[in-house]
């Protein structure tokens, strides 16, 4: 293990570590703690300039109900779910299929198609922006949740296929050969042999894609205009513009907006990190 385990070091180092770690953690989380605190402040604190001390009055309930009743926050959150969940399902369905094709079969264009998915995954969004916006306009899908979902599904399919293909390729080939000898059709192999085995990859990708899409801001601003379809990232931006000095309300909105990915992260931490650090240990 590196560095040396702390209980094998000098007493002074141990002491430093035990005090230093909580302090470092506190400083690191200070920005987030500040938002959390601000979200329960009263307006008076802000006008008196008390932005960073303890709140003089606690307005947890008032602020959070205000932000829901005075703004379209609820619609924004709902839209975010309506964009995120179908994207996760769509991208994973396509990626399981494509990953299966690229991971199991050997054919001439295999590597080329694989590189297309890997490379396309890294292009800057701006090179796609005008044509994708145009396409959505022509399909009548501009400013709709469907239009946003279709793009996200397509783009996330790149990353997910990359991940899935590598995962499936590392499955024991004997399983597939054995199934073929037993007379299983290729479709049986997909549904009965491969799909049950890729569950860990599906879990890891679901939480990752959920977080990426929930936090997407760029495409929300490019493909959506009205509040009726605006996800919460774009919504927060307009709330911030609307309430220039009402930081306690914007903070409350931010906390609500951050909740779903944060919950998913803490509940499915193992899968989340497995997905994110995929490839960080071999190569």
């Amino acid at each position, binding site marked *: *293990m*590196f*560095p040396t*385990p*702390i209980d094998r070091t000098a007493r002074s180092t141990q002491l430093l570590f*035990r005090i230093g770690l909580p302090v470092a*953690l506190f400083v690191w*989380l*200070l*920005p*987030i703690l*500040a*938002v959390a605190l601000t979200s329960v402040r009263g307006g008076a604190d802000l006008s008196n300039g008390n932005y*960073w001390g303890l709140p003089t009055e606690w307005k947890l309930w008032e602020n959070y109900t205000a932000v829901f009743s005075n703004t379209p926050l609820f619609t924004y959150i709902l839209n975010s779910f309506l964009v995120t969940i179908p994207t996760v399902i769509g991208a994973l369905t396509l*990626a399981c299929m494509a990953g299966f*094709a690229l991971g199991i*079969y*050997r*054919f001439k264009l295999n590597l080329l*198609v694989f*590189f*297309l998915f*890997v*490379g*396309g995954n*890294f*292009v*800057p969004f*701006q*090179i*796609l*922006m*005008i*044509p*994708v*916006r145009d396409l959505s306009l022509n399909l009548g899908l501009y400013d709709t949740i469907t239009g946003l979902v*279709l793009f996200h599904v*397509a783009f996330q*399919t*790149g990353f997910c296929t990359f991940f899935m293909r590598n995962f499936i390729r590392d499955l024991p080939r004997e399983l597939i050969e054995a199934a073929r000898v037993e*007379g299983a*059709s*290729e479709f049986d192999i997909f549904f009965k042999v491969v799909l049950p085995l890729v569950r860990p990859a599906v879990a890891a990708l679901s939480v990752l894609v959920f977080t990426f899409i929930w*936090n997407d*801001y760029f495409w929300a*601003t490019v493909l959506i205009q009205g509040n009726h379809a605006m996800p919460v990232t774009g919504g*927060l*931006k307009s709330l911030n513009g609307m309430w220039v000095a009402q930081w306690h309300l*914007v903070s409350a909105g*931010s906390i609500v*907006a*951050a909740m779903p990915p*944060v919950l998913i*992260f803490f509940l499915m931490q193992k899968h989340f*990190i497995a997905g994110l*650090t995929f*490839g*960080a*240990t071999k*190569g």
Partner: protein
Amino acid sequence: MNSPSVTPSHAPPAASWWSRHQLRIVPWLFLAPALLMFVVYVIAPIFESIAISFYEWDGLSPRTFIGLANYKELMTDPDFHISLKNNVIWFFGFLLSIPMGLGLALLLNQKVFGIRMAKSLFFFPFVISQVVIGLVFSWFYDPSNGLLLHVMDLFGMDPIAVLSDEDLVTYGIVVAGLYPQTAYCMILYLTGLNNLRPDLIEAARLEGAKGWTMLFKIVLPQLRPATFIAVVVTIIGSLRSFDMISIMTQGGPYGQSKVLAYYMYEKALSEYGYRMGYGSAIATVLFLLMLVYIIFILYRVYKQEQETE
């Protein structure tokens, strides 16, 4: 490459065409939906954008072909130069997240009570939307009451309004961007540290290696895969920087915090006008810059493939 394995001989002869060709057709059936979506929404738009960059177009009326005029204009466009310069600042500034992430990972790679929770909390900023991080940091920098102001006051310094300072604004936003990016690099290195080969570490310890020597000679070489991914995601992230700029400054003051990604959006879609052709030219430049890394990544993936074959 080998041809697909032989079809089982006991397949019924009636289905012979299908069973003879099954292994050739099936992969394409499974690929078709993903490939179709990806080509329509990702691959084709790249070429379309490059094509649009040779036109003058407001997005509505017919396009006019103007050849390289957009690119010529870019060369003398001061805003383009500012954006390029800021991209360079983002690039090098963002790379700091790699040593910082490594430092955090080294600090946290311990087995003491509560360390799992500490790791999760250090990673926390990465999970939160950049919009929220951007908002938080604009309050942090707020010239009338931000925390930075109070801290500087404490040390008897004159307060600086970072986000309205033409020279400092980009650095200020990069610091905000480093917050989640450092968390990302940290988690990559934590995973790498978790998979170090204990025998190598112990052998080096027996030979008296410790501290920095150990880190540079024994540990870092084993962390190379993690470093590779950290470099890739950090460089790509630095060229993709958009959210924070849009939230914190909208490119200001006086357009001094623009980067290519933001400038392109501003030219093509914002209230400053709908110059699709010009925007596409900026996007093409950004794409070509990114292409260097994409080729680098693909080359590495290709080499890995050859090794595993």
